[in-house]
């Protein structure tokens, strides 16, 4: 849920935009807490940075479009977009990469389409995809949890890394960062090694990557709570996870030395964050019940296709954007017939 629903005015009703956005943020708390535990304070700084840039961009765009600034600015939709964007970015990405992504998300992907409720593409994923394509070096430098546990950068050090590109004192950024588990497996396979050799590296844990598996469980917990509170509907998360899982099972059984295990796919990268928080954005997803199942399954399958065979180690952002483009067509063909319509 990054934006908001068409036809919903920002007010204080129980299911108003601001209350939904607030509950989405609450649901992200376990994931963010685990993120800080495993990867240090970078994510907190990134969330604050992305949120302030997003709010300033939102304010400027609302002013330019001559819309009321305060009600839209306080509806929380820009904050949710910014936090999801920050969670998708590497936690120690330079400040200007995060800022460009946040500005692109709010200005191009949201306000050029009329803002709140009209954007066809998920703003957070559009911003993320833009910087991933444009700044691949900055976007593939991820902290290694097993290195961080030895020398964890504090709040000041994290800020120094993000804003000045260098930690203080004995910390060396190069020593702390490396490839994500998904990227590591991809490059090892590219060097003709087997999956069983690749997952022996210290970045791997029980279910997925070390640290990443716990993050995924945190997002899963928040997502289940959102389902319980009826903020999101079950079709998209279930069909997305099922699509990814079934693809992974089929190819894993065909050759477990080339394809990663299905459990690994579920608990690494942005799978859980995407399934419950990103793909479920009601504005950019398909809206009919059958349409939502097709939409979710499409994201799961495309994520697998990009992870397994294309150049990017995690394809979730692209899969979401691709299915965003397909969503109006899916709606068009899954609309329930009105009585008498379509007969000749």
């Amino acid at each position: 849920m990054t934006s908001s629903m068409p036809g919903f005015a920002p007010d204080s009703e129980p299911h108003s935009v601001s209350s939904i956005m607030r509950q989405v943020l609450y649901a992200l708390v376990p994931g963010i807490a685990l993120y800080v535990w495993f990867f240090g304070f970078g994510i907190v700084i990134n969330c604050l940075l992305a949120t302030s840039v997003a709010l300033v961009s939102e304010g400027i765009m609302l002013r330019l479009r001559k819309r009321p600034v305060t009600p839209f600015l306080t509806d929380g939709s820009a904050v949710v977009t910014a936090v999801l964007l920050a969670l998708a970015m590497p936690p120690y990405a330079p400040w200007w990469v995060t800022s460009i992504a946040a500005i692109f998300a709010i200005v191009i992907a949201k306000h050029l389409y009329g803002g709140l409720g009209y954007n066809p593409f998920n703003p957070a994923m559009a911003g993320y995809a833009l910087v991933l394509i444009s700044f691949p070096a900055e976007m593939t430098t991820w902290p290694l949890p097993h290195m961080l546990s030895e020398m964890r950068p504090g709040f000041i050090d994290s800020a120094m890394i993000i804003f000045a590109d260098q930690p203080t004192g004995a910390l060396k950024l190069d020593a702390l960062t490396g490839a994500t588990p998904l990227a590591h497996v991809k490059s090892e396979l590219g060097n003709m090694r087997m999956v069983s050799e690749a997952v022996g590296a210290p970045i791997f844990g029980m279910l997925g990557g070390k640290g990443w598996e716990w993050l995924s469980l945190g997002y899963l917990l928040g997502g289940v709570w959102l389902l319980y509170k009826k903020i999101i509907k079950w079709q998209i998360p279930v069909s997305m996870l099922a699509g990814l899982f079934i693809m992974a099972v089929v190819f894993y059984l065909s050759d477990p030395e080339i394809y990663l295990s299905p459990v690994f796919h579920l608990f690494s990268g942005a799978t859980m964050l995407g399934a419950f928080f990103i793909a479920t954005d009601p504005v950019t997803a398909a809206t009919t019940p059958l349409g939502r199942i097709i939409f979710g399954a499409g994201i799961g399958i495309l994520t697998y296709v990009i992870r397994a065979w294309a150049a990017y180690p995690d394809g979730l952002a692209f899969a979401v954007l691709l299915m965003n483009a397909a969503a109006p067509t899916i709606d068009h063909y899954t609309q329930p017939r009105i009585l008498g319509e379509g007969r000749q």
Partner: protein
Amino acid sequence: MSEYALILASTVVVNNLVLDRLLGVCPFYAVSRKVETAIGMSSATLFMLTLSSAASYLLFTYLLVPLGLEYLRIILFILVVAVVAGFTRWTVEGVSPVMYHLLGIFLPLAAVNCAVLGVALLNLQQPHGFTQSAFYGFGAGLGFSVVLIFFSSLRERLAVADVPTPFQGASIALVTLGLMSMAFMGFAGLVKA
């Protein structure tokens, strides 16, 4: 078999005619206002691309190469495209008047489409035989069609969106095309060139 699957994957998603090669953007924009016209244009382009890609391959290999006249290929292909468009029109008119009515105005549009000439020329850069050439045209047409239908549904939704005045119309349509193009960049590396 896998060779044909690779041609399809490459032409439909990785090197998509509109989103990656940026060919045929003008008819793409012109006919995407409604889903129905988009479907008509899609079928016409699909048909034309398959035929003209195969026909231009045959003429190039069996006429221009033996005569040493490869440099005439652009002029010849323009002719091929026009003839194929006319031929398609007559055939469809004879076989199915309903289809003709559906495709009618789109066939001449497809005939003057840079994408059709572009695919015929791009095909020659690949080590393709006759069937592969037809498949290449078919895949390019399929990629064009899928994106055109998605785009037309998106544009129907954009028509009711509260788009800021300076961005209404062509601007927001091209911004959307750019975002779609960005999404398709996720397929980079899917087919090793």
